[in-house]
């Protein structure tokens, strides 16, 4: 989820108030290390892998993950970032601002893409991202890694690698950063 989208959605002046911290920085790092090993296990190595971070929230964990994968594999694993804003099904329903440009210099044909996002919610961003990825070649497979799966899916999409399953209410908000994962609400200050 793009941070700026989040900010724009809050043009009404409401702010995020964390209620509980569900993972701290060390938990996040541990989860990423576990996911890195799971990715290698599933794909029998890092051959043909491309890690793609979804703007904006998915980029920091993806960068972290690609660092871990490269370290384990002993060679550089390709990395890219993707902004799916222009592929969303709700462009006409709400303001969407493509913020960061996509950087994906690899032809994805025949590759295994590990798509990384911070929070998996309705699944609509992932759907848009899958459409966007298709324009960069026909990947052999796309796998989805998320830091938090908070439920409430609206589309038949499921993650392959999950940092933490976090049951939430629809009206709650989840924030992921290097410092940890917090759950809270949007409130009028």
């Amino acid at each position, binding site marked *: *989820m793009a941070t700026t989208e989040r*900010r724009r*959605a809050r043009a009404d002046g409401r702010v995020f108030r964390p209620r509980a911290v569900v993972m701290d920085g060390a938990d996040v790092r541990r989860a990423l290390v576990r996911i890195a090993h799971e990715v290698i296990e599933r794909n029998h190595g890092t051959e043909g892998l491309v890690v793609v971070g979804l703007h904006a929230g998915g980029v920091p964990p993806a960068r972290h993950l690609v660092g871990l994968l490269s370290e384990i594999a002993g060679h550089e694993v390709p990395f890219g970032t993707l902004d799916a804003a*222009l592929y969303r099904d709700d462009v006409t329903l709400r303001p969407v601002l*493509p913020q960061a440009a996509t950087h994906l210099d690899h032809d994805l044909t025949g590759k295994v893409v590990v798509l990384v996002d911070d929070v998996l919610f309705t699944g609509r*961003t992932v759907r848009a991202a899958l459409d*966007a990825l298709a324009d*960069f070649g026909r990947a052999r497979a796309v796998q989805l890694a998320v830091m938090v799966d908070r439920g409430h899916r609206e589309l038949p999409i499921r993650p392959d690698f999950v940092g933490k399953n976090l049951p939430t209410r629809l*009206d709650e908000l989840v924030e992921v950063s290097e410092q940890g994962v917090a759950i809270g609400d*949007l409130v009028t200050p």
Partner: protein
Amino acid sequence: MTSALVGVRRHLLSIADLKRDELIELLALADSFAEVVDRPIPKVPTLRGRTVATLFFEASTRTRLSFETAAKRLSADTMSFSVSGSSMAKGESLRDTVETLDAMGIDVMVVRHHSAGAPHQVARWVRAAVVNAGDGQHEHPTQALLDCFTLREVLAERAGGRPPEDLCGLKVAIVGDVRHSRVARSDVLALSALGAEVHLVAPATLMPCSLEGWPIVGAGAELDALVGEMDAIYLLRLQLERMSAGLLPSLREYATRFGLSTERAMRMKEGAVVLHPGPMNRGVEIDAAVASSERARVTRQVRNGVAVRMAVLFHLLEPAGGAPAPLEGLADRAER
């Protein structure tokens, strides 16, 4: 940051209507689209089902094709209208013509007209969003936007990194027929709003009668004095019909005094660039060798034109109103 753009503009009629923040945001938006243009499949589904019509009551190659390319890159449908072959040839009025098109459910009308203010007038008659693609001697806002975008790129190249927000500190000379040029008018407004220093160079007969209110640093008839100091030299097309109007003694004299010759180009600053809105009169305002040199960014301008016009179309068709309905939970829900 709340967007400066959201829900503010329904039309793009002149640069004078835009605030600095809005210019900055449009250029930043164009960055995203410039990346799309460079992709192996340079097309995104964003404006699927929307229709963009180009209504050109005056000749054009690049502007019209640029708008149509931009619309197609965003998956919008395009229609084009030209006077010859239309009912206007039978005497249908401008108002009836645009109202007819509007009734067909067009979302954006891109209008070029030989009379200043025509797009403003059209905007009053139709439901569609209207983009001014050049009106008489008044304005050509998307040209100014793409020029600013190109200069921003030049600054980024020089600093080695991401393009800066604005054009602070950049020195630009606009040379040629400033009086009759809508490009000059829009460019002066946009460049100065973004913090660039603008100088005008023209023979007295081609300088506007009054420069009052023009946000420029200087105006004169001496190109040689400025050549070495400018970061960019913007050459306007010499409209050859001005010759017959008796505003110029001879083409050769114009070329000698105001043309960017190879010799003058050699005296330009390191990294300084040459811009031209096209079509170029090689050998008049610009030497053929200069036009093909490293300094010339003319083809870059054309390429950037598509990205900038994508940003404009996207912006005009973006839903108005800023935040979605502030229903509890829904705003957040809409994000994923």
